[in-house]
């Protein structure tokens, strides 16, 4: 009973502090809008001519979602972990009924809500601008959540090793940026040299984009990616919870 109450208290405070960090909130939601507008302009209207951004517009929906699923939890959780370390808050929490996994769960849930809002914004904007139809694939929802869990766990590990909040963001970006372009988000694997493909397969984000794309295309076959994503998410969450320190 107390465990759920404690997690709810942590979720409440995490959501409240997010809402009150107006700059962070604004950029969290403006970022996907800019993304859609910029990539919408880059993507060619006549698909099939080869080169970058030459796939049908719907192909890139998974990429847009991957951007927020990757960056938001990675930067949010890593920076929050560092802030909690700097304020000796983990030492304080270690004396309360809230466990480290409970703490990470609470912040992951809040981050998932933020990412779901961002994702909805992206998909609605794309539909409104007639770039692509609004996808009717419920399987996207759990895949977004699993993606958030995966990168929240990695974010907690980054937050453990980074010395400062700025350092955490820098490490998060260093990990995220290459992954973004090597995970079948905006660059189709057919455009990559064959020796690159094992690297693509090693990217956790790949299974998110593959799964989401398969679900959107109603092609089935997203189950395999979903299972890999779920396994990676579970592993990252456990490692992330263990990485959260009790004392600085």
């Amino acid at each position, binding site marked *: *009973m*107390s465990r759920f*109450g*404690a997690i*709810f*208290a*942590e979720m*409440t*405070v995490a959501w*409240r*502090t997010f809402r*009150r*960090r107006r700059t962070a909130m604004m950029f969290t939601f403006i970022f996907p809008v800019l993304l859609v507008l910029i990539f919408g302009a880059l993507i060619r209207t006549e698909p099939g001519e080869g080169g970058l951004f030459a796939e049908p517009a719907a192909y890139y929906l998974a990429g847009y979602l991957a951007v927020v699923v990757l960056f938001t939890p990675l930067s949010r959780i890593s920076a929050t972990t560092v*802030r909690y370390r*700097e*304020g*000796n*808050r983990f*030492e*304080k*929490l*270690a*004396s*309360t*009924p*809230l466990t480290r996994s409970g703490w990470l769960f609470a912040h992951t849930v809040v981050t998932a809500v933020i990412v779901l809002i961002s994702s909805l914004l992206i998909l609605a904007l794309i539909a409104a601008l007639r770039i692509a139809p609004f996808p009717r694939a419920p399987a996207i929802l759990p895949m977004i959540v699993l993606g958030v869990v995966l990168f929240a766990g990695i974010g907690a590990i980054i937050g453990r090793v980074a010395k400062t909040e700025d350092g955490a963001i820098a490490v998060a970006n260093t990990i995220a940026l290459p992954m973004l372009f090597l995970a079948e988000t905006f660059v189709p694997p057919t455009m990559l040299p064959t020796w690159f493909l094992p690297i693509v397969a090693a990217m956790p984000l790949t299974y998110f984009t593959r799964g989401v794309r398969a679900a959107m295309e109603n092609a089935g076959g997203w189950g395999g990616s979903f299972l890999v994503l779920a396994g990676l998410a579970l592993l990252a969450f456990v490692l992330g919870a263990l990485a959260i320190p*009790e*004392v600085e």
Partner: protein
Amino acid sequence: MEPAVAIEGVQKRYGETVALAGLDLELAVGEIFTLIGPNGAGKTTLVRTLTGTVQPDAGRVSIGGAIPGAIDRERLGVLPQAFSPPGRLTGREIVAYYAGLYDDPLPVDDVLAAVGMAEDADRWYDHLSGGQQRRICVGTALVNDPDVLVLDEPTTGIDPAGAQQLWTLLRELGDGGTTILMTTHDMTEAGAISDRVGILADGSLVATGTPAALIGDYGGASRLVVDLRGDPSDHLPAEFPWDSHYEDGSLHVTDLPAERISAVLAELDDRGIEYTSVAWTEPTLRDVFLAVADWEDEQRRPTRSTVPEAS
């Protein structure tokens, strides 16, 4: 009766540095025990050992008979050193947040009133003064009405009136059966609220006792300092009837009860020696701390690295 807190032979090393060197301590239910000691003496390590956030290399710690990892966290209140709660919240929201972590917390308004923050509770935490922020932090440690309260320098930054209010509160909690272990660098605070004080140096508890007992054992004698006009040393005969000496224009009389001050001044008047000021001081915990810490430093210097390796 089982002690509220029991520490037996606790050792902790960080590399070559000995943080705790085989420490033994028991706290009775409702006792207020204050640890004083120089920076780096091991106070925070001991606090963290008690709360389970640092594992000792050797020895045993128990709170209410349970090891720290197994203690009911509903019954423990902790204020870490240099703690700062999440920002962008009001004082009330912060206390309510920590209240929400427990099953049966005290009413938030009662906690805010107890730490003297009822009126300013709805201001942003970031906009409060340092002392007010610290009071909110103390409130977060009290909010679950703990049986054992561990406070690492709780009154740092709080003004004297606010500190006095917290001392009264802590005394009331102690009288109500809450066992309190705290650390401080404020000797007045240690003397004002503690049932017992322990002096920690180089990871060892080198002296423990009531403030009065420690002062009696280690504080030295009372001192009377009379600033004399001019240079009357020629008029001070060797057979002056108290333990005294003349130094830098002042007469220093040691181990003089307060009721004998007038006799000293009368003696000076009789001898025609004029004086400009008189100051009499009793020994305090500060004197105890300086005496014990210095002595301990002298004693330990050659053997500092001889603590046995933890098993």
